[in-house]
């Protein structure tokens, strides 16, 4: 085993960290307060090629591997989890299924502008009554002439309202349950496709989370992604990869909180000494660092497996499960180390602790990750 990043993996870390610290970090707090993302950051990321990292150049991507992508999401999330999930949902949940299941035509029409950052992407899977049980979607798609007619609604959709392109999972044959589903590419502005409620959240507050509403929304037949009947399968495979993105986001949040905690512990004095000289604080820092490293190894392994064409469903679930629980634990400890200051919005650890929680919920809750891992073990 070689625990060494390649030259370009090192370089992407350095470049994205530099960008994140100079451009993103100063905006992270204000964007959280305003519950609004500053999309001038999107334009900068598009310019740098961060909007299509793991896709071939012929489709507008940067032609890098998934480990590079994981590192980029980690570094962005280290200073701003909302920026991390913007890239992660766009790349893993929308661009990837188009890249993997799309026809050549669909790829040129949709992946190209997504990867080069002209357009933003989102995935609409979850519904009010279909969360963890994502196979039970009720949104329907009925073929009428050359078009499918979509009816229903999707909730909690990341990049909702801001995204231009949506991959939407709908039922084409209710009698077949999850085997009667299909994936569709739906463009913003299609008549009958509107946005409902904006969610006001605990964390990742700059990330836009919306309800999608379909009322007799007509989507051209050729916008079906993959085969009819495979919608749920496509969603599951998409989430397998998406979990690497969310695991990277969680890892970044944990690292960011840890770095803040180390810095603070050295300068804060109580009882006439820096609090980092107390063993109680030292042991917290040691445990935080150890868990973060373990999470990083799991995340990078999952990305490596994906890059080398090996199965990664179990490993990406493990990475997501462990990294998200690590993020929640580490950010809680970081707030603890900051004492009363950590509980206020003067310092970023307060935001980081709120941001960490979502990583245990979306793209499969921690319980669902355990189900996936166990199913892989017992199969």
């Amino acid at each position: 085993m070689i625990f060494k990043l390649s030259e370009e993996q090192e370089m992407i870390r350095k470049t994205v960290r530099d960008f994140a610290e100079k451009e993103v970090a100063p905006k992270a707090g204000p964007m959280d307060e305003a519950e609004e993302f500053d999309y001038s950051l999107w334009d900068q990321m598009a310019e740098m090629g961060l909007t299509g990292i793991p896709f071939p150049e012929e489709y507008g991507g940067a032609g890098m591997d998934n480990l590079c992508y994981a590192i980029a999401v980690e570094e962005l999330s280290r200073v701003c989890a909302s920026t991390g999930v913007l890239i992660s949902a766009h790349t893993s949940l929308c661009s990837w299924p188009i890249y993997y299941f799309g026809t050549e035509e669909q790829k040129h029409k949709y992946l190209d502008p997504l990867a080069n950052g002209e357009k933003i992407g989102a995935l609409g899977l979850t519904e009010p009554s279909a969360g963890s049980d994502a196979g039970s979607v009720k949104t329907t798609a009925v073929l009428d002439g050359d078009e499918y007619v979509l009816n229903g609604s999707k909730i909690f959709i990341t990049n909702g309202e801001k995204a231009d392109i949506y991959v939407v999972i709908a039922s084409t044959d209710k009698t077949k349950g999850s085997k009667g589903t299909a994936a569709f590419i739906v463009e913003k502005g299609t008549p009958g496709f509107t946005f409902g409620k904006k969610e006001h959240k605990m964390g990742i507050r700059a990330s836009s989370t919306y309800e999608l509403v379909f009322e007799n929304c007509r989507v051209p037949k050729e916008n079906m992604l993959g085969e009819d009947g495979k919608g749920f399968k496509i969603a599951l495979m998409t989430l397998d990869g998406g979990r690497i993105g969310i695991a990277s986001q969680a890892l970044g949040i944990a690292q960011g909180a840890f770095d803040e905690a180390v810095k603070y512990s050295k300068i804060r004095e109580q009882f006439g000494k820096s609090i980092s000289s107390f063993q109680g604080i030292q042991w917290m820092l040691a445990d935080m660092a150890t868990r973060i490293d373990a999470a990083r190894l799991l995340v990078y392994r999952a990305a490596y497996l994906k890059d080398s064409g090996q199965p990664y469903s179990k490993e990406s679930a493990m990475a997501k499960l462990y990294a998200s629980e690590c993020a929640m634990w580490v950010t809680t400890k970081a707030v603890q180390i900051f004492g009363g200051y950590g509980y206020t919005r003067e310092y970023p650890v307060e935001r980081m602790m709120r941001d960490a929680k979502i990583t245990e919920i979306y793209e499969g809750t921690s319980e669902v990750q355990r189900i996936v891992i166990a199913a892989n073990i017992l199969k």
Partner: protein
Amino acid sequence: MKILVCLKQTFDTEAKITLDSNGKIESKGVSMIMNPYDEFAVEEALRIKEKGEGEVTVISVGGQQTQDALRQALAMGADKAVLVDPGEIELDEFSTATVLAKTIGGMEYDIILGGFRAIDDGSAQVVGRVAELLNIPVVNVVTKLEIEGGKALATREVEGGSEVIEVALPAAFTAQKGLNEPRYPSMKGIMKAKKKPMDKKTLADVGLDENQIAAKVKALSFSLPEARQAGKVIPGEAAEAAKELARLLREEAKVI
């Protein structure tokens, strides 16, 4: 247009400087960056190239790890890199400039760019010395540069204002903050950088030996700044306290 950029790898601006057991600056474990003023120089070179056509070559004198800074310039868009590794000898500004001038002497160039100073030793000498050795003009602390018809109009900072200078090319220019806003390397740039040429040379390769570049200036010792003393609060009534402050400034601090 052939543009050469001299760049140096320096300590990260946030690095904590410590001394080793021999009293030398400890470089182990310190993260390194491209000298920020050199980033302005690289950016300016790329902008000049992008306006017309041309080629940007980045050159550095340093150890093997200096390749990281050169690769960053390649990822930003420079075309070629040259690294001259002088080995384990101590260099001063004379040595570095001699190596650079000798290396550049064998190359074609219209413009030489560099940072006006490096943030580590801050000597602000190297590019000026290179220009002198090559017998070309140098314009320092440039904040605006326009190239046209074999000439350059360079705006530079002077005490209390700025000055515009016209020079014929080839010429050297040193970059000051404000010249431009350096770009971040793009992902495609990072991928391309791997395939761009990195010419690694030794002193012998450029036709020099250690004696010819022996440092003329030697640092005798290094010391860290003294830890800042805690401030002093002078209690009491304002008028009394002010009197006491004046006394302390005169008698203890000896500044008035």
